[in-house]
């Protein structure tokens, strides 16, 4: 049993981290170990899992593979020497970073190191990143920082120059399929299909393999896009996709929102159904705003998943149109792909791919998701598709 077991297809990165942990625990921390790390890699490649594995290895006294008790504490995020900043909102605020920096100055209490992890470091704005600079450059002797981000370019140059970067690669479809088949007991063919359709995103592949609704939603997304024949269809399709993403997000957040509100009311001492006294309204308001921010984030994540699926669809169509061969992501809807590739020119498909990238950029810039989706899907109109 080792912390490094369940990480798929990242042998190089694991070797780097394991060597660092081993040497530092042996007392020779001069070559492989450093105090600030940055793990980059595409979504779903296991950035944060690797960060926690490394943390567990560092926090376990004398065992670079991690001991059971520490692994359990790290998994529950309850280890006293582990500081974690992860967000369910769109951005990480400056106050959250300040608190983390303050905590990083305490000496470790149980282990040799204090480990501070920031998941989604790309969600820090410039001001929040600047708070981190001093702490990253000269942390207290036994504090280790681990940041995770999709790519180096997502962080400020001043942060980049203060960390050692470890790059993860996109795991191979076969590796992911193997992991899913082994861990969830799915037969290999279905696991391979899920892994391919998730484009090696491990979490997504797991969901597609085990959740019938997720599969159906993906199928519905692709079919909706393929059936667009006019501007009117495109606008209706945008509404459909938005609804799909909204349902996805709501399934995650609605129940939690109600529960949190109830808990908050109970801890404020308001009887169920009674009116909230004016003095307490601001607290509830803060809670509601928090929930709203979380909803925004999960809606955006849902839309982004849809766009990634559509990217794979039009990539496949382009491959067919150019006749270059290669593995198709959506091989399961081959007849539809052939029909769609005959209905348009490669130029049109490229324009659609560009439009999807543009829409992702626009949504990041906070424009109305409906508008971005509509503008994107209009370029996907294929009038001659019936022939």
């Amino acid at each position: 049993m080792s912390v490094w077991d369940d990480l798929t297809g990242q042998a190089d990165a694991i070797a780097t981290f394991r060597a660092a942990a081993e040497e530092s625990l042996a007392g020779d921390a001069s070559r492989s170990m450093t105090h600030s790390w940055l793990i980059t890699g595409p979504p779903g490649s296991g950035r944060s899992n690797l960060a926690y594995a490394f943390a567990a290895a560092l926090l376990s006294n004398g065992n670079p593979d991690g001991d059971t008790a520490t692994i359990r504490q790290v998994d529950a995020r309850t280890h006293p020497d582990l500081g974690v900043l992860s967000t369910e909102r769109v951005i990480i605020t400056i106050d959250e970073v300040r608190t983390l920096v303050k905590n990083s100055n305490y000496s470790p209490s149980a282990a040799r190191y204090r480990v501070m992890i920031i998941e989604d470091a790309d969600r820090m704005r410039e001001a929040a990143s600047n708070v981190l600079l001093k702490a990253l450059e000269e942390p207290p002797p036994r504090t280790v920082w681990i940041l995770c981000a999709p790519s180096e370019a997502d962080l400020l140059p001043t942060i980049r120059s203060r960390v050692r970067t470890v790059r993860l690669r996109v795991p191979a479809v076969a590796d992911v399929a193997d992991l899913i088949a082994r861990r969830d007991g799915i037969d290999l063919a279905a696991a391979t299909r899920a892994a391919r359709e998730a484009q090696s995103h491990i979490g997504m592949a797991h969901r597609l393999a085990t959740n019938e609704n997720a599969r159906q939603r993906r199928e519905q997304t692709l079919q909706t896009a393929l059936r667009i024949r006019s501007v009117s269809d495109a606008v209706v399709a945008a509404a459909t996709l938005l609804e799909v993403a909204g349902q996805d997000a709501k399934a995650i957040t609605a129940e939690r929102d109600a529960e949190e509100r109830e808990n908050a009311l109970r801890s404020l001492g308001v009887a169920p159904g009674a009116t909230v006294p004016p003095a307490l309204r601001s607290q509830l308001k803060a809670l509601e705003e928090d929930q709203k921010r979380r909803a925004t984030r999960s809606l955006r994540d849902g839309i982004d998943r849809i766009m990634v699926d559509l990217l794979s669809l039009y990539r496949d169509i382009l491959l067919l149109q150019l006749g270059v061969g290669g593995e198709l992501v959506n091989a399961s809807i081959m007849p539809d792909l052939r029909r769609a590739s005959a209905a348009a020119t490669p130029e049109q498909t490229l324009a659609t791919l560009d439009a999807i990238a543009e829409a992702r950029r626009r949504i990041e810039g906070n424009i109305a998701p409906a508008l971005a989706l509509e503008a994107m899907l209009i370029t996907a109109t294929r009038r001659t598709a019936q022939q």
Partner: protein
Amino acid sequence: MATRTSARSTTRTASKTASKTAPAIPQLEWHRVRPAPVVLVTGPEQYLADRASELLRDTLRAEDPSLEVSDIDAGSYAPGELLTLASPSLFGEPRLIRVGAVEKGTDQFYADLLGYLENPADDAYVLLRHGGGVRGKKLLEAIRAGQGGGIEVLCPEVKKDTERYDFAASEFSAQHRRVTSGALRALVSAFSGDLAELAAACRQLLSDSTEEITEETVDRYYAGRVERTAFQVADIAIAGRYGEALMMLRHALASGADPVPIVAVFAMKVRAMAKVSGRRGGSAQLASQLSMAPWQVDNARRDARGWDDDGIGRCIDVLAETDAAVKGGGRDPVYALERMVSVISSRGTSQY
């Protein structure tokens, strides 16, 4: 003439309410408010209610300058509060008790007030402000049935331009001042948003000028100001009247409209047009297909006359671009809006 119209319209509203609940107490317009043991002020127009309350206080103070005024918030009412304030004091001054937010009152408040209605205090005037809604219905019915010898003051929402015109006219005639109808029209179009703003403008003109108020007077004070909403701008632009739309856009921006909601309104209208474009069938059938209301389908169809699919497609793309630009993606939000108006009023053919 203007005041007469207003009087007629109020009688109509009053008679409509009357046929529903058959109140046994007089229902008055806001400026006819007079002292009574219980004055119930209902209706959604907060500004008129405030004016009625002010008027009542001034009347009472003119009768007896030692008037005691106190305020209660029905939403945070403590038991017995009303009785404490209403009971006679040592020197027997009259008392005006203003109660706000009756539509959000506590249960104890309604109980206390119903008890008070059976035996109102002498020389005490209770003004109840009820903004609408079903809460406190029992109390309203008791007052309307004549308990406590009350009156009701109606403050219906002022929505239409003609109603605003009447309101402004009555503001001037109440001070026995002459005003031309052109001046009134200019005033109403300059302040078509908040009623309080219109009233303030009227008061300003009343206190500053001595002779008859004409269009020139209004022009001198509020020259060129025209309030426009994003909806009006969008309607004109979609109808293809470029110059007029651009002018209205400038008016809208100058009178406080924000670029972001303007884009949202355009997007909503163009989206509706895109949905109905190229679809056949009756409006009821389409409405259920597209989850819109039948009248929305009809409006969108009327708007989409003369447009083609490519034009609508290009407009949606420009709208997305503009939305990004007004949310910080571009340098000049106003330029982005003008460009959008240009593209839309050319039905998507302009290469701006």
